[in-house]
């Protein structure tokens, strides 16, 4: 047992922390959030130069070949600085999907370009009726000539608008809800018949609903064997979930820090409000939630690539359940203890609060993970 980061992981963390602290202040974040695209290519280049985008790309594709612990080490600062660029979507999740097919020529080539920041990819998997069920795929891929035709609708695809390539899951066989019969396709975002409805999310990131109408694809755009892609998708989503947990812990730490600072300087009734025991206890509860969440972010990182799928999911569901509850408490109470100021757009607190709220809603909320945890745990 050892919960220390390695020297290498620490260095990675320090590099990312320094870069984002210097380059990604609150004002920069607000400017990017208000821009048409909602992300900044120069930041993306900066992250590529630091190697952040290559962390989990295999060495054979020009990457660093690292795993979830290195991702854990750097995600907290992405959360803290409210990073809007698609690190989670492209450098973690899409990269994890493609890694499963890295031996294939097209996937390997895309990974190489992603590692140096030349291309962005996003996984377009969940659908409007799916809620949080990964096997809920209605999008169809029909065989035609020497390729496929895709028809369907993917909902709330994070960073789809920034992506050059979408990794789209579609049924080549089976019914909605079947585990088998899901195939995965590399779809250029400019493909004829692909329409995106791009919008900001509540936390200022960007997402899109993606409509596929008779999108024609060559056979070579399929990743892996036909109908056998769901395992790779779920594996990548689990890696993404662990990274999201780390991002959220970074936000929670920042909120707890900001709240402690605020109750020290805000005076009412002739003293700092932090002197009132009722508020001290509230902050103590926030601290407890934070440490519980941090523990589970470690568990998630350590287990998210476990070969034993059942154990992996059990751990990740436990982690997301605890994370969601902590995010809720810390987010709500941090706003509460900041009083009216916590409600304003002016303070970072409200922006962190919204990012945490979005994290609660992504990849399944606490309740759905509690239920999945119960179903996976022997009585």
């Amino acid at each position: 047992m050892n919960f220390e980061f390695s020297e290498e992981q620490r260095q990675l963390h320090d590099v990312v922390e320094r870069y984002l602290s210097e380059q990604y202040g609150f004002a920069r974040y607000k400017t990017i959030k208000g821009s048409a695209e909602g992300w900044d290519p120069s930041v993306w280049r900066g992250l590529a130069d630091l190697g952040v985008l290559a962390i989990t790309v295999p060495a054979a594709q020009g990457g660093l070949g690292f795993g979830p612990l290195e991702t854990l080490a750097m995600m907290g600062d992405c959360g803290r600085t409210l990073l809007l660029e698609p690190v989670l979507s492209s450098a973690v999740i899409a990269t994890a999907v493609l890694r499963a097919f890295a031996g294939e020529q097209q996937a390997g080539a895309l990974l190489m370009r992603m590692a140096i920041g030349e291309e962005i990819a996003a996984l377009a998997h969940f659908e409007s009726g799916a809620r949080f069920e990964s096997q809920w795929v209605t999008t169809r891929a029909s065989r035609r000539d020497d390729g496929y035709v895709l028809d369907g609708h993917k909902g709330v695809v994070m960073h789809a608008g920034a992506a050059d390539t979408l990794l789209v899951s579609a049924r080549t066989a089976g019914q909605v809800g079947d585990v088998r019969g899901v195939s995965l396709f590399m779809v250029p975002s400019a493909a004829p018949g692909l329409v995106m409805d791009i919008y900001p999310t509540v936390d200022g990131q960007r997402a899109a609903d993606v409509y596929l109408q008779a999108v024609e694809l060559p056979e070579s755009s399929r990743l892996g064997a036909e109908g056998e892609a769901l395992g790779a998708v779920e594996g990548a989503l689990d890696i993404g979930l662990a990274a999201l947990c780390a991002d959220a812990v970074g936000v929670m730490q920042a909120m707890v820090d900001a709240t402690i600072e605020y109750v020290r300087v805000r005076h009412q009734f002739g003293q700092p409000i932090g002197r009132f025991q009722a508020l001290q206890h509230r902050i103590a509860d926030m601290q407890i939630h934070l440490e519980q969440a941090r523990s589970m972010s470690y568990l998630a990182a350590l287990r998210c690539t476990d070969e034993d799928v059942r154990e992996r999911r059990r751990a990740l569901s436990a982690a997301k359940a605890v994370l969601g509850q902590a995010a809720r408490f810390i987010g709500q109470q941090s706003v509460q203890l900041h009083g009216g100021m916590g409600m304003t757009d002016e303070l970072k607190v409200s922006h962190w609060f919204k990012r945490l709220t979005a994290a609660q809603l992504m990849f399944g909320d606490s309740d759905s993970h509690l239920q999945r945890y119960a179903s996976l745990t022997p009585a």
Partner: protein
Amino acid sequence: MRLEFTDEEQVFREEVRRFLREQLSSDISDKVLNGYELGREDHVMWQRRLHERGWGGMGWPVEFGGPGWNSVQQYIFEEESALAGAPRLIPFGTKMVAPVIMAFGSVAQQRRFLPKISSGAEWWCQGYSEPGAGSDLASLKTRAVRDGDHYVVDGQKTWNTLGQYADWIFCLVRTDPHAKQQSGISFLLIDMKSPGITVRPIMLLDGGHEVNEIWFENVRVPVDNRIGEENRGWTYAKFLLGHERTNIAGIGIAKRELARLKRIAACEYQHGRPLREDPLFAAQIAQVEVDLWALEITNLRVLSAQRQSPSTGPEASILKIKGTEIHQSISELLMRAVGPYALPLRREAMEAGWQFDPTRESPGPRYASTLASSYFNQRKLSIFGGSNEIQKNIIAKMIVGL
């Protein structure tokens, strides 16, 4: 002991329902029932309707042009209004400053101000909080210095709800800087058109503009616009805060939103079944529903006691805390009910008139578009009107006696 309202009260409820059926237009109630924003005009128009019916000064005695309802009738009116989707009453005129003017104002002030509050011709906002004086309101610093027939006001107020619409503001100002905190305060009525007043919007986390900062620079206010005596303003302020707390629990609104939650949870599917049938989600709806039922009865007990004496006691703090917790729980469940489709933030989809592209169902169901913003916005409930922490202090001190 009985739970039911009296026959007369039931008759009154029917009268209110009939009025709402006849007078509340569907374009307004659609906005309210679906959580879309109301504009100034919607509120003013509704206030005018109420006024025409003689209900403009809802809680006012007959001698001041009100309908003379007791607190039970007011409760019934507000509950039915909420359920029907009528705009919530903007309280600053009718429920806050008007009772102060009636109790402590001069006859001239009563004649000048009350009719226009009732008719909606003049919009009022509140000037209590300051950047350094929130929970500790008595530490306020805005100064009013006497200069002949005027006061000269300098300072800054904040969290002025809908101050951008206001014609008048009632303000607590310090007239005696040397007196003990509470005893050097006066209560002024200030024309928002006075030179030297600047209103600056405060943008909230949901992107909405509902509160402001108001700056006063050498603003001249006629002494005639002072309520009651100089340096007695704290007494009037406390009286006002007591009135602010009638119907503070918002039972009717909570019932309406709970019904909406159930409708939405019936439309959302999880594992192929309506979310309404999901045991965990259903239990959370049930939890908030039983809490609401308990609070309704608690509220009715308070009202019943008020039939004898109309003042609102510290038990209003119980109603405030529990009421806001229930509103916040419902808004959170509403957001969670739509899952990932709570994430898209589309300003245009929050406007009542916005039309979906009928060829698409994007992004998500129509009812989802306002839910996250509403959840964020409702966090204010446990902060404003005396934070819930302050309310607990009141309960501990005034009810429990610790």
